[in-house]
């Protein structure tokens, strides 16, 4: 069998010298699949992304991407990462197109001049998230949702085999949200693997092949959506505040899978 797209094995990390932010987390993602990452605020989703990317060095355990150490995979341009919130200067003198072009930079030559193929990929990525009309805007001149789409386009332009998306649905409207799920399904159809965190339990079923439940700083369970998204598991992941305790908040489809 070929190596998993992503293999997180028994990873523990801490911020600074403090208590563990992730305890013995294990998760594997096979090529061509979409895995939804769900859990309460502060459960450790973003921490898991940062650990996978090597921004937080694991105290224990290891992470591999397509059978390689992460740094090597990054150098090969295999991983695209879109953080939950971009930590950039929004007044920076770059246009949306410039930002999306940065997704291609790793594969450009010595002087990093975009080739015709790079420009085409950028154009296609912009179109894919309906940002073509905003391409020449300075990046600060966008709404919150448009900013998210611009950075998603950058990840698309990178044409990576593994995409790590930390809450791409946060703060985007319903139409955009549907567009993004469609986009992720297309990516998976073309063989890419996606790890995507979300708080929208209701849509998980529609586009995720797998679900990973994360709670209390570790991965509780991970597996095919239908088997994993059970009432019992959800109750464990969401504790006393389980959406199941509040019928008004239960997403219908999450209930159906019981």
């Amino acid at each position, binding site marked *: 069998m070929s190596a998993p797209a992503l293999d997180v094995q028994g990873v523990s990390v801490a911020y600074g010298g403090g208590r563990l932010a992730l305890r013995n987390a294990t998760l594997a993602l096979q090529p061509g699949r979409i895995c939804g990452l769900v859990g309460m605020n502060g459960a450790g989703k973003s921490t898991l992304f940062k650990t996978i990317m090597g*921004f937080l060095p694991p105290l224990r355990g290891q992470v591999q991407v397509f059978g390689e150490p992460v740094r090597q995979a990054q150098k090969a341009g295999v991983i695209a990462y879109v953080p939950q919130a971009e930590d950039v200067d929004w007044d920076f003198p770059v246009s949306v197109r410039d930002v999306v072009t940065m997704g291609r930079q790793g594969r450009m030559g010595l002087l990093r001049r975009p080739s015709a193929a790079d420009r085409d990929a950028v154009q296609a990525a912009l179109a894919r998230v309906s940002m073509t009309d905003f391409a020449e805007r300075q990046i600060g001149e966008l709404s919150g949702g448009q900013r998210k789409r611009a950075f998603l386009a950058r990840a698309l332009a990178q044409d990576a085999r593994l995409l790590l998306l930390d809450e791409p649905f946060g703060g985007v409207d319903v139409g955009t949200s549907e567009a993004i799920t469609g986009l992720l399904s297309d990516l998976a159809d073309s063989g890419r693997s996606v790890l995507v965190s979300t708080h929208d339990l209701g849509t998980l079923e529609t586009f995720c092949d797998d679900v990973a439940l994360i709670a209390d700083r570790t991965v509780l369970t991970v597996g095919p959506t239908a088997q994993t998204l059970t009432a019992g598991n959800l109750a464990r992941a969401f504790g006393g505040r389980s959406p199941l305790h509040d019928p008004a908040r239960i997403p219908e489809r999450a209930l159906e899978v019981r």
Partner: protein
Amino acid sequence: MDALLAPLGYDFMLRALLVSSLVGAVCAVLSCFITLKGWSLMGDAVSHAVLPGVVLAYLLNLPFVIGAFVFGLISVSAIGFIQSRSRVKEDTVIGVVFTALFSLGLVMISRVSSDVHLSHILFGDVLGISQNELWQTVVAGAVALGAILILRRDLLLYVFDATHARSIGLNTGFLYAALLVILALTIVSALQTVGVILVVAMLITPGATAYLLTDRFSRMMWLAVATGVLSSLLGTYVSYFLDGATGACIVLTQSVLFGLAFLFAPKHGQLARRRQQRLEREAELQG
């Protein structure tokens, strides 16, 4: 008329114009990165910290650029070392380190000799630049410029979004170090023209002016170079009539250009902003 053209008849003037415009161009290109990265204080720090290096180079009979460059590197390493090993904030560490090295330089000058012209080091003396110093300046400036131009896009990405730079496999540690080394080299090349105290102006003002004029980085670079070179030429020329203070004249010209951009820049200037606000309010009241 003849009086106005007179300066151009002198070799030393032509040399000064040439050197100062080269320095103006190199500093201007770098200033785009320094201002966007928020490293103005770092620029000020490195420029002051090279003083002991200049004095030492004089004592050991070495080219001044070498001494200055070495102390530039010592200062950034010391800053990085102390910062990573203490809870003191970065700007405080920078302040502590550069004032220490600058003071060390002053003490060395007062102890060693009256041959070292303190005022020339502090304020530059491009009108009196020797052939030897000219070459050192040109080489340091050319190497810095070449490095920036080659690394330009990676440096830009690093300054804008280091997380992404690392994600796509760039070596961000190298880019950080490269930017610091280029900073030190550029400062070294500007010493003869504007001196230790005013170098920082060359490293930030053209970038700041250009930033007010455009929202595109490539245009920002060209605009910065244009204001940098124009200021160097005008400032040097004017200083002929004042018989000195060339560095200060250059920096003053840059400041005037910044002031003009601050007021009159097409989109980000004060007047344009006010007009824009008024138009928006009126449109809203009408609608």
